[in-house]
């Protein structure tokens, strides 16, 4: 019999983890929403950010919170190189080509990680962040709570950027109607590049959080990309703030699967959820009907 405390505990863990899922997915959702490019190398950029924080901590004792901006920078640089060298040259090509292209980059980066840093799972361990806080029998670590706050802040930040700033509005207008945007004097090629780099920064920033809460390894990126896509579809393409709700649904659902069924079925939940959305509500929770 599962006790009430266990249920409340797994609800809370699922809720907190859901926020992190939203953060891990932000870069992919942003790029897909704006450019209609699915970046299959998204997970690797998150992992890159995680490695940056890991090595900064191990070599120089830099706190993962301080390495957040550097991880973002690394992600942005990866995005810029990817766009300049490859993606920017095939903007007119069919979707299938872009998919294969980013899939190739995913395979490439994952194997570069393997080459440089072996297949070991690397966790970023900092005492302060691991410290447990408890409210009666319910527990959460400082890191988990902080990560949730950062995740919500990041999602709201992107939302505000898109709605309140000039650059953000230019990006939105270009996403809605390229030709009109170009006629209105917006440099659409530059907007594309900028949006892709922002996607890289968002992915990179998520890396240290991932490393603190779980671990990073060459094999972490692929499944992360799939999860990010599931969240993007669940939220509805183009809905950034919907990611939080979608993340919480996935996080709580996984936690409940583990509590009531079996931990080996955990990964199955997201997938079943994905198939259900595709069949029942393909435009997602907050997306416009296609």
């Amino acid at each position, binding site marked *: 019999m599962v006790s009430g405390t266990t249920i409340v505990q797994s609800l809370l863990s699922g809720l907190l983890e859901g926020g992190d899922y939203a953060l891990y997915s932000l870069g992919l959702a942003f790029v897909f929403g704006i450019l209609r490019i699915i970046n*299959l190398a998204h997970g690797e950029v998150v992992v890159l950010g995680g490695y940056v924080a890991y090595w900064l901590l191990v070599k120089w004792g830099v706190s993962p919170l301080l390495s957040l901006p550097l991880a973002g920078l690394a992600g942005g640089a990866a995005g810029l190189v990817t766009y300049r060298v490859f993606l920017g040259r095939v903007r007119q*090509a069919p979707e*299938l080509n872009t998919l294969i292209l980013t899939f190739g980059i995913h395979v490439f*980066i994952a194997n570069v990680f393997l080459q440089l840093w072996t297949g070991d799972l690397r966790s970023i361990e900092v005492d302060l962040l691991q410290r447990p806080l408890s409210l009666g029998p319910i527990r959460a670590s400082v890191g988990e709570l902080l990560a949730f706050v950062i995740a919500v802040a990041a999602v709201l930040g992107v939302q505000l950027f898109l709605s309140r700033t000039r650059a953000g509005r230019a990006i939105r207008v270009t996403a809605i109607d390229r030709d009109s945007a170009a006629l209105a004097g917006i440099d659409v090629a530059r907007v594309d590049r900028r949006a892709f780099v922002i996607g890289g920064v968002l992915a990179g920033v998520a890396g240290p959080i991932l490393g603190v809460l779980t671990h990073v390894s060459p094999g972490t990126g692929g*499944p992360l990309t799939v999860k990010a896509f599931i969240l993007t579809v669940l939220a509805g393409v183009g809905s950034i703030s919907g990611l939080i709700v979608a993340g919480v649904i996935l996080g709580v659902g996984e936690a409940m699967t583990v509590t009531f069924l079996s931990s*080996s079925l955990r990964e199955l939940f997201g997938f079943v959820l994905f*198939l259900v959305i595709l069949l029942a509500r393909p435009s997602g929770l907050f997306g416009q009907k296609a």
Partner: protein
Amino acid sequence: MRPLFAKVRIGEGTAALAVFAAVALLPVALSFNPYYLSILVSALVLGAVAIAWNVLGGLCGQVSFGHAGFFGVGAYASAVLAMKADLSPVVAMPAAGLLGVLAALLIGLPAFKLRGPYFALAILGFAEILKLVALNLDDVTGGSQGIFGVPPPPPLRLGGLAVEFAVSRTSNYYLAALLLLVVYASAVLLRRSRAGVAMATVHADEEAAAGIGVPVLRTKVLALSVSAFFTALLGAFFAHYVHYLAPDSAFDPSWSIMPIVAALFGGMTTLIGPAVGALAITGLDEFVFKRLFETGHQLFFGLLLAAVIVWAPSGLLGGRIRRPVGRSAA
């Protein structure tokens, strides 16, 4: 003025004839060296899977990042049917192909209902799920321990001559070559059929295809099913050839990645191109990349995929074959 080297254009049939002649004679040229033969068997298996992948990718225009799932299902199904249900591998292998079709329907029917990249992403996760299933169904699959002692195909009696598949690399090589031929011939027949024309139409323009009455969903699901059948069949051959299965080997992501590299490198607009690509990249892998790096040599293939898409989307043969099968990847 004529260019110095006019671009040679050959027919699909001529190219295929050359490939199969080379496949038939290569073992002789290598004086049946078992080391080279084992590399060539992998190349042939990859070639057949790549042609199957390309029925979906090149002909119908739907890219799959999860063919390892079908390969693994085929390998496990055939091994289990042969060992637990005492079926002869001759029966178990095609039955395993049909289970591959079942897996294809499970993922294809929901994911193809929507236009766009949903299928590509769904199947990426699906292959992982199938691997998890194999890991967790301990009673049937032996979990992470895997299955030992998968029996070889039964000996073939040709008059007084008995061809065995337990040890001989040569007989396994020619069995793989035969499978390659079967997959290729089926792809050719499919392309000439009404269904094949429908697939090419869906590839060229989905909306227009729907407009002239092509059943888009059914066409895509059929392409996926054919592709999954042959991929699972080759997975089954793999099981009876290596005699040992584990989730990590049967569902190795390589079986998703390498067929794409082979098809794209050889030319997705041709039917024989993927086999040529498979032979070429297996050679590159064995004799160049693996010597440079012991692990992670797949990084070259990732880069190759990206580079071919950007700078040479028609691949090795794409520009040289008359009457391409679908729209050029470019």
